[in-house]
Structures are given as structure tokens and as C-alpha cells.
């Protein structure tokens, strides 16, 4: 099957004093869809270029199916790359673009034509074969770039923010398309994006990068529900982070005390080992924050409603906590009717289920 495993061991790259990639290790299984996610400058594109052979590492090794390709040139790696701005050859027709890798592999013309037509079918654009790239829309160019990449069945496909230049609707559509092709070809895909939603929808696993190093590697659920750091909690979806101190640790979770509070409450762990007395952060996702009018409930916090925003299916409440110095909180619930149940300026009582409060080690201290 056209699929290989990929192993990156202690790979690093610096440009002068700037560490583009700290020594990084990563295993990608045969047929896996792995996403490198992170803000710009986090090292994800550097890692991708090193894997593709378009840049040379300072240290470390790259193995494809256990064969060391660290020093192989790009053309000898059997890797396909879909570039950010497609990099379609402007002087060749769509057909010639797609046939190019076949020509480089000395595939006979007849066979090349058949494979090209098949690739165009796969991306559902059989009618544009004779056109030039500039005559296509952005979404069409994207599909052709994809076709040019899959036509020679590379063992691994690398995609560098392939949907970055498309508008939202088209992006959603292409995400499904890429997933479909991944299912059909079962090729190993390493995908780079800075869009956390895109990473969540598409990936088997996400490798979240920050400042040239891996911040957390795991399934989308791992990263979303059990973030290892404040950075991860913040980067994937919205989150409310509250300062707290660990009181005791048991098998089910932790006893904690929120900063500036007396009452004990519970939180679940994220896999890290916590010690009693340690300052931590408690993460509660906006949809898990329960809101009642102040006085009527037994909330853990109170705050004043500052803003109500309806963004389609969700309504967001922005709340300034009573406690001085605490960051604003956001609560979200499905939009039900146009009538807002709360008025701006109203005092609200906030609570959450212990199971929805995740403890995160606070590297910077409480």
C-alpha cells in the first residue's frame, strides 16, 4: 500500500541565533493523519520543510519506514508536498502539471495520461485538464495541487497550510475532500495549520507546537479535554482559567481551593502528577460554565455581565468577576430565542460540575 511510517529523532534547526526547531522527536504511524498545529513561528513549517528535504537539519535523523533519509535530496524521498500557495507551474497546463512527477519517474506517456485522468477524477475536476493554473479559481487550484501530489502515490504526503488562502465555506468543503482522499488512499499525511478547528476536525492526532518545540502530542480529545499546559488550553478552543491550590490528590481527582476562596471544590486531573500545596490553574470550557441570577443559586463565583454576543448557534456571555484582578470569564450556551435572559450590568452566579474542571500545572506559578 502506498503508505509509510515516519520517524523524526532529535531533529533541530537554527538560523543564526534563532532556534527554529529545538531537538524534536516524533513518530507518525503508517496511514495516520497527523496535524502540526501552532501559532506562526512555532516551528511547524520548519519541521515540515526538514521532513520534505527542502531544508537541512543541524542535528537529528529522519527515517521513512526505518530507512534513514536525513541527507537524501527532496527528489529522492518519495514524499509529496502540497504547498501553501499551491506552487502550480504557471507555464504548464493542468494536465502537464499533474503529469510532471510521472515524467520525472520516466513513466510511459500512455500510462501517465491514464494516471493523470484518474487523479483529476479523484479531485472531481476532469474538465479542466487543458487549462492553465491562472484560469482556475483558488479552490480549483487547490484541488489540482492535491491531484499533482496523489498521482504518483507518494508514501507520505505533507501539506503546508493548504487551505489558508480559501474562504471559510470552501475551506470546510475542502477539509471533507481531503479527509475523503485520505480514507481512500490510506496515505500517511502530515498536515500543517494554525487553525485549531481545522486540526480538530481532520486529525487522528495533533502535535501542538510552541516556540520551536512540541507542547503536547495526542488525539484531539486529549488536547481539548486534558490539556497539559495553559498554552494548550488557550490555543484549542475558548477556556476560562482560574487560579487554585491543590489540597489533596486521590484516585478520582483533586481537592482544590480556588484563589481567594475558602470553600473546597473538586477538579479532575490531566495526567500530570500534582502535589498537595501546588499552585495550579483550573480550566472550565465556556459551555460548561453554568449561569444563574445572583442569589438564586449556590455558584462558586459571582460576576457582572458586561456583554452578550450571539454568534449563530451559540450565545456568549462575558462576565467581569467580582474578585479584583481576576481575568474576565466567558460562558456559552446554545442560542434559543432572541430574548436575552440576562441584562447587561446584572450580577450573575457562576458554577460548574467538578468533572468539567480540569487541573493544569501552572508553569509560571499562580
Amino acid at each position, binding site marked *: 500500500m502506498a503508505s509509510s511510517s515516519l520517524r523524526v529523532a532529535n531533529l533541530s534547526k537554527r538560523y543564526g541565533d534563532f532556534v527554529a526547531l529545538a531537538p524534536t522527536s516524533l513518530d507518525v504511524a503508517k496511514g495516520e493523519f497527523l496535524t502540526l498545529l501552532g501559532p506562526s513561528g512555532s516551528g511547524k513549517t520548519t519541521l515540515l520543510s526538514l521532513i520534505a*528535504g*527542502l531544508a537541512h537539519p543541524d542535528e537529528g535523523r529522519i527515517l521513512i519506514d526505518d530507512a534513514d533519509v536525513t541527507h*537524501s535530496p527532496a*527528489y529522492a524521498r518519495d*514524499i509529496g*508536498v502540497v*504547498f501553501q*500557495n499551491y506552487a502550480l*507551474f504557471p507555464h504548464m497546463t493542468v494536465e502537464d502539471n499533474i503529469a510532471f*512527477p510521472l515524467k520525472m519517474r520516466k513513466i510511459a506517456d500512455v500510462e501517465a495520461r491514464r494516471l493523470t485522468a484518474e487523479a483529476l477524477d479523484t479531485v472531481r475536476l476532469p474538465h479542466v485538464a487543458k487549462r492553465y493554473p491562472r484560469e482556475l479559481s483558488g479552490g480549483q487550484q487547490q484541488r489540482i495541487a492535491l491531484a499533482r501530489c496523489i498521482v504518483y502515490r507518494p508514501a507520505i504526503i505533507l501539506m503546508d497550510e493548504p487551505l489558508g488562502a480559501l474562504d471559510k465555506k470552501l475551506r470546510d468543503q475542502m477539509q471533507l475532500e481531503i479527509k475523503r482522499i485520505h480514507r481512500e488512499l490510506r496515505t500517511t499525511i502530515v498536515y500543517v495549520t494554525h487553525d485549531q478547528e481545522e486540526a480538530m476536525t481532520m486529525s487522528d492526532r495533533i502535535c501542538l507546537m510552541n516556540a520551536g518545540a512540541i507542547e503536547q502530542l495526542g488525539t484531539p480529545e486529549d488536547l481539548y479535554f486534558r490539556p497539559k499546559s495553559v498554552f494548550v488550553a488557550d490555543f484549542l478552543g475558548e477556556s476560562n482559567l482560574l487560579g487554585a491550590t491543590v489540597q489533596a490528590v486521590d484516585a478520582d481527582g483533586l481537592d482544590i481551593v480556588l484563589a481567594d476562596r475558602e470553600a473546597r471544590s473538586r477538579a479532575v486531573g490531566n495526567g500530570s502528577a500534582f502535589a498537595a500545596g501546588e499552585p495550579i490553574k483550573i480550566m472550565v470550557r465556556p459551555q460548561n460554565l453554568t449561569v444563574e441570577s445572583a442569589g438564586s443559586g449556590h455558584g462558586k463565583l459571582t460576576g457582572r455581565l458586561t456583554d452578550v454576543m450571539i454568534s449563530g448557534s451559540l450565545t456568549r456571555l462575558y462576565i467581569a468577576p467580582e474578585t479584583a484582578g481576576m481575568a474576565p470569564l466567558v460562558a456559552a450556551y446554545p442560542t434559543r430565542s432572541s430574548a436575552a435572559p440576562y441584562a447587561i450590568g446584572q450580577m450573575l452566579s457562576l458554577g460548574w460540575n467538578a468533572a468539567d474542571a480540569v487541573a493544569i500545572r501552572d508553569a509560571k506559578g499562580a
Partner: protein
Amino acid sequence: MPLRSATPRELEVRAVGRLRTLQQAPVLTPVLTWAAMGAPLVLLLALFLVYPVGQLLLLSIHNDSGFTLAQYRQLFASSVYVDVLLITLKISLVTTLVCVVTGYPIAYLISLVGKERKATLLFWVLLSFWTSFLVRAFAWVVLLGRNGVINKLLLSLGIVSAPLDLLYSFGSVLVGMVNALLPLAVLTMLSVMDNIDRNLPRAAATLGAGPGMAFWKIYFPLSLPGVAAAGIMVFVTAIGFFIVPALLGGRRETMITQLIIDQVQQTMNWGFAGAISVLLLLVVLVVFVVYDRLLGLSTMTGAATAANARPSRLSGSFERIGDVVLTLLGAISDRIIRVLPSRRDRGPDTPGLWLQGFVWIMLLIISAPTFLMIPLSFGTGGLNWPPQGFTLHWYQEVLQSPVWTQAVVRSLLVGLGTGALAMLVGTPAAFLLVRSNIPGKAAWLAFILSPIVVPRMIIAVGLFYVFARIGLVGSAFGLILGHTVVAVPYVVMTMMAVLRNYDTRLDHAAQSLGARPLATLRYVTFPILGAGMMSSFLFAFATSFDELTIALFATGGLNATLPKQFWDEVTLQVSPVIAAVSTCLFIFMGILIFVAERLRRRVAAN
């Protein structure tokens, strides 16, 4: 769509891919690669620019008995040479002023209008730019002569009763110089104006500035780097001119390069020619130092755009005065615009009729003289206006003369050779300057561009001296070498621009798709760069085809190139044969520009 499992053929595709992973590409250390790519150009410039010019300068302080300043003593013994220098500076300065002031509106209009009209306007500027200096100067000789168009017109209108002596005066030299250098000024300013964001004056308008204020306070300051670059380019070129003052000037308009020619051709006094060259070189150097002090040389090297123009080093008070003047100009312009009848039908970005009228008149003035050669070349009455009769006699004379046909063949040969050599040597250097992180890039670039800055005459005399000793005088090969030295900076500059526009991700894409470095060059890089390379080649060819200074000493008789033959004829007599040759040259250049423009547009389309 369901997908079949892999066919045997596909498995083979993968197998080939796999096989290649085992092979290694030969990796040269970067230093070796740099040396291989840059050495030919550095060697060429060292041998045929630095060495000859150095030799010439050495000759000025060295004679048979060793070190001497005799040549310099002679230079300053009488006021003759200093006077010539002052005249040279005066002519160059006035030429620069006129070129910049009249060129500005032309460049402004070209940068303003839409695509179609821009191409038309640009064609006329380029046609004039590429028409031989010789052809244009000769045309003015005919035009301003006692029986020329202007005198005939004035007589028939009854403005004068006898023909005026228009030729051989400061005025005629100035007209010829401006005609020669105005296109250069326009093109230099245009390269900066094209990069000024159109939205900035519009933004100024929304912020409450009238059109006059928006122009003077926003657009004009942003265009200043272009004005400065045009100024220095025109001035430095003008200072080394000899064709125009020789053909259109009298004794009192002798310029400094003419003195050098006299020393070499008539007295073979190398030492004195060297001393005058030093003087000329010093003046050029001083101009550059002053320019750098005031504006910074970085504004010159083509990288000058309005966006990265740094604030000038002019003192704060000077700047404040400038600001006051610009504000005043803006206010006055707006006052005038308000008084003028407003035309509602034109949008804010449509150029006014005054501007358009002025530009077309200027384009007519710089193009008309050469066009007037066409009817004269078919006339039987010599070069008197109006042309009489119709004859192909002059063309026949050109075609039957071995001197002319040999000259054409030789010029084509030397031009093609220069184009090829300049591309061969310049393209790798351009790659190196754009793609590599070679240290001291700015210094290398300055070195490569130095043949433009060093007055052509000094290069020519130095080359003549060196060639004479190694027996290359009069040979086509020697000419190709000399022409390549002066053409290669243009090749490097255009190739650098072409390479900067080239998206290197296409190379990466090709490699990731399995193309080896050579296949990448063959199927992707060169096909895309092809049009740019072709126009770069044409640039070098045209530079050589029109080159007179180096050819002036290096060739003669049956070895003459076309410009040299033209020069020899025109300094002997003004005949209709010259008009016929001019016409042919003019049409040839017209076709060449048309082809080059086509190529350029193809590049732009990609």
C-alpha cells in the same frame, strides 16, 4: 468515488521512487559553488575594467623616468582645461535640471494611466531611449540646419527674413542632450512612481486635503527618491558625453571627453589622456559622495521604492523649510484648481488635459526629429526641407557599399556575442546575489554596477591601451569583451529583478515531485524565466549594437561597427545616406523594442 487497488504499474512508480532514496546528490560546499558562479564575472571585470582603468591612471603619474606630475602641471598650466571642465559641468547641470523637470510630468502621467495607454506612452519613451544617440543627434543637425525644418518654417511664416544660425550653440547642444537623456530620466523616475501606493493620495483626500495639497504633501515627497536617482543618472551620463557636443556644439561647447579623444587619436599622449581621465573620474566621484551624503546611495540601486525610502540626511531646519514650501505649493495649487472651471465629468484619478497635452508635446519633440529622417531619406534634394521627389538611391548606396554592409554584419556579430557572453557571465552572478547568503552582497553589487558609474570614455581609453599591447585592437573578440563589460551590469540588474519575482517554491515543488536539480532547471526554472532572460539578452545586444565609445578606438575601416561607421561618415559630411541608415536603424530598434515588450508582458502575465 471508489478507488481501485494499486496496479503493477503504480507499484513500479513507487519502486522507482524508492530506488532513488538510496542515491545521494553530490553536495558542493557553498564556497566552491559561489566561486564557480561568481568568478567569471569578477574575472571579466578585473581584467577588462579594473586593470585597464588602473593602467590609464598609472600612466598619468608615470613616464619613462618614473613618477612624475608633469601631466597634471600641464593640465593646470593654462585655464583651457579647467574652462572645458566648467563648461562640461554647466552643460551637464542644465541638462539634468531640464530632464528632471520635464521628465517628471511624463513619468507621472505614465504611472497614472491605465494599462493600455501606459503601454502606448511607454512605447514612445522606449523607442526614443533605444534609438541610437547618433541617430538622434544627427537628426537635430538636419533639423536645426540653415535649410532645416525649423528655419524653413520660420521663413515661411515670415517670422524671420533670413535663416538663423541655430546650430553650434549652447542651445543646440542643450536640445540634443535633453533629447538624448530625457528617456533615461523618465524611466528612472517611473520605476519609483510605479511603486507609490495610489491609495495614499486618496487617503489624503478623505482626510481633507485638496488635490493640490495631496500631490505636493503626499505624492511628491514619496517620488523624490526617483527624482534624485534620475538626477544623478542623467548627470553622470551627461558628463561623459561627446557625441552631442561634437555634432551640435561649436568650439565653445567642447566637453571634457572630447579632449580625451583628441589626446588619444591625434597625439597618442596616453599620459595626458590619463590625467584628464583622473580629473573626470574625480568629478564623478565627488558627485557620488555628495549624493550619498544628501540622499544615500541606496536610493539608486534599483531597490529604491517609495516604501523603503529612508528619511534623507538633510538637516532638520532644511526639512522644515521644505515642508513649508510644499504646504505653500499645495495651498496655491488648490486655490488655482478652485478658480479653474471644474469638470465634473472626470474622476479624481483622471489626469488633466494640461498634463496630457504637455506630455504628448514632449514625446513629439523627442521622437519627431528621427521621424523626419524617413521622408528625407527618400528625397532627391539632399537633406533640405521639404523633401523633394522620391528615390531609393540612398538605400542602394548603403547596400552596395561594402563598408556599410560589413559594418552591419560586424555589429550584429559583436552584438550577439556580447549578448551571449553577458548572459553566460551575468546570470550565475545574479543567481548568486539573489539566492545565496554570500557575505558582502552590497559591495559585490556595487562592484558589478561600477561599469555604469565609471565614465565610458575612461573604460574605452584604458581598454584601447591594454588591447594595443596584446594585439586585440580591431578584433571582434576584443570588442565583445569590452561591450560585455559595459552591458553586464544591465544583465545582472534585469536578471536579479526577474529572479526576485520568481517564486522559489516552484523549484521546491519540482524537487518534491521527483525532479533532480538539472531537470528542475530544464522543465521549470528556465521555461518560466525564459522570457525574462530573452529580454535581458536583448538589452545586452542593444547596448552593444549602439555602443560607440569603445568601438571608436577599437575599430576602423572595414573592421568598423555600425555606430563607428556612422560616426566616421557624419563627422566627414552630412549626407542623405546617413538619413537612410538612420531610418533602417530606427525601424530595426522599433521592432526590437516591440519584441522585448511582448516578452516582458508574457513575463508579467505569468
